[in-house]
């Protein structure tokens, strides 16, 4: 009887979205969810939300304080600050998704090779992962930028190169744990090729935790992009980036302090949003995990 009730889904107290319900129960997580969704919507709908073009220069109206025409004022070239911030969200999200996806792909590939391949290759790869992980990240990043030159492409390389080792380690551990499982043994007994075993039964089983880790790294990548663009080593002008907007504000901090105030705000709100959402998710999924280092 109980199985019939389950199948027809007639349990009255069953929630349709248990995760969403749990997240909305906590006020901080609720605000965080609003911030993160706001960020994503801003990034996706930037052309419709921005009142002006983010790169249109209007020197006659430079460094104007916030007004009805320009809600956040204008920068040193007369560009509308609000529009630049809105488009900056798009830049941040684009770079974050592309670089995290590339890093995840490299990590997945090398992790499986290390976990499933020959022992000597595993030893070598682990040494590479550990060496890269024990480097001071900023020095590694600056070294890559020196060689390749600043730009969006380099930024993606930097983020991928500095973050793939931890993904590879995770996948390697997942692969090792499943190496002796019955379903891989079954595959081997049926004389399936190594490639077939890796792609058909192994891959779907190891990829889950990686996706969680990748999505948790998106805010970290947004900060790295903003930081390097602030130093002038990330996204090149005139592409709007939250980091370069903040830098423009910094250079005219005495003449137009509102630029810095509004330029830093999206970074603060986005980090707070992602962090508290992560906290909420973590409490729901696994209460034992800890938060990451300060950025």
């Amino acid at each position, binding site marked *: 009887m109980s199985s019939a009730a389950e199948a027809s889904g007639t349990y009255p107290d069953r929630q349709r979205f248990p995760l969403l319900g749990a997240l909305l129960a906590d006020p901080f997580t609720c605000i965080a969810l609003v911030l993160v969704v706001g960020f994503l919507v801003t990034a996706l709908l930037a052309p419709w939300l921005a009142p002006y073009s983010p790169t249109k220069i209007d020197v006659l109206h430079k460094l104007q304080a916030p007004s009805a025409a320009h809600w956040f004022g204008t920068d040193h070239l007369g560009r509308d600050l609000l529009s630049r911030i809105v488009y900056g969200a798009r830049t941040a999200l684009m770079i974050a998704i592309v670089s995290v996806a590339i890093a995840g792909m490299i990590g997945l590939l090398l992790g499986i090779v290390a976990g499933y391949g020959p022992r000597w290759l595993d030893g070598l790869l682990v040494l590479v992962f550990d060496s890269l992980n024990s480097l*001071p990240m900023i020095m590694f990043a600056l070294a890559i930028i020196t060689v390749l030159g600043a730009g969006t492409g380099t930024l993606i390389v930097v983020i991928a190169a500095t973050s793939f080792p931890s993904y590879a380690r995770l996948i390697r551990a997942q692969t090792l744990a499943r190496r002796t499982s019955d379903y891989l043994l079954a595959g081997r007994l049926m004389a399936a090729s190594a490639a077939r075993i890796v792609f058909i039964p192994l891959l779907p089983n190891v990829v889950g935790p990686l996706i969680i880790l990748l999505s948790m790294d998106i805010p970290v990548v947004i900060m790295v992009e903003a930081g390097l663009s602030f130093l002038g080593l990330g996204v090149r002008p005139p592409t709007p980036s939250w980091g370069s907007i903040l830098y423009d504000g910094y250079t005219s901090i005495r003449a137009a302090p509102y630029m810095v105030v509004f330029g830093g705000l999206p970074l603060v709100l986005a980090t*707070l949003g992602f962090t508290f959402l992560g906290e909420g998710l973590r409490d729901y999924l696994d209460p034992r995990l800890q938060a990451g*280092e300060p*950025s």
Partner: protein
Amino acid sequence: MLAYTLKRIGLGLLILTFVMVAMYAAVFLVPGDPATVALGPRATPELKRMLTERMGLDQPVWWQIVEFFRNALTGNLGYDVWSNRPVSTLVMEALPNTLILGLTALAAALLIGVPLGCLSVVKRGTIADAVIGVLSVSVIAVPSFVVAIYSLLVFAVALRWLPAIGAGEAGDFASQARALILPAFAIAFGWIGYIARMVRASMMEVMGEPHIRTARSFGLPEWKIVSKYALRIAIIPTISLVAVGLGSILSSAVFVEAVFARPGIGKLITDAVNTRNYPVVMGTVLIMTAIYVSITIAADLLIAKLDPRGRDVFRG
């Protein structure tokens, strides 16, 4: 213990070698030679040849690598492409500023963060605990360069309490200390929350252990149990965390030095990256990696010594 120490040091040296070889390989994998890249498209052929010779780029690659390591071992890291000053001198001039900044920030974060974490444990379950919890998470999240800019705006530009740029007058301790406050605060900000949170978490675990129950049964006040008996064990994960976090303190220092125009390693290397000054970048990266790797090893050894529970393993 000796075997462990040697193994860690060996791995550290291996990492350093790996870094330098990888950097050299990267320079030569990139299309276009470094001299052209550094000088830009409008350089004259003579200028280019001069720079190529000065950077040693006319030699075979393997020879350059061998040469670089041999020089590095004797303390010669090459010369600045533009000013022709030795890279080791440049680094040694900048290093004290960055070390003072990082250590001050770390000390401030520990001095504020550890008591806050203890307070959270003593007052666990109260509003004070909840407020500290939320604030800790919030401050961890905000990037240091944003904190730096906002504090610059408030305390240096608007209120004019503290200097906006530089590291203070040479030889004048008061002015150097004043110039240190804002940069150190910007770096410490996130760490205060992180340390408070870590101390609280590891202390809550310790609070359930038998020796705490014994202390409590003796009727000791709660603050004494926390500060004397629980902190001793709970501080260990915090130490390892701080050691691992030195890399992120270093990266914060790079950004914060850029904001406050503080002449340190961060400013040295970002300027060098911007002008594609390869010898300066490589020398700085090598020295900073060496320092970072040695601190990590020292911290690991310190933890092995500090933990009263782990100590017997090495004695036995």
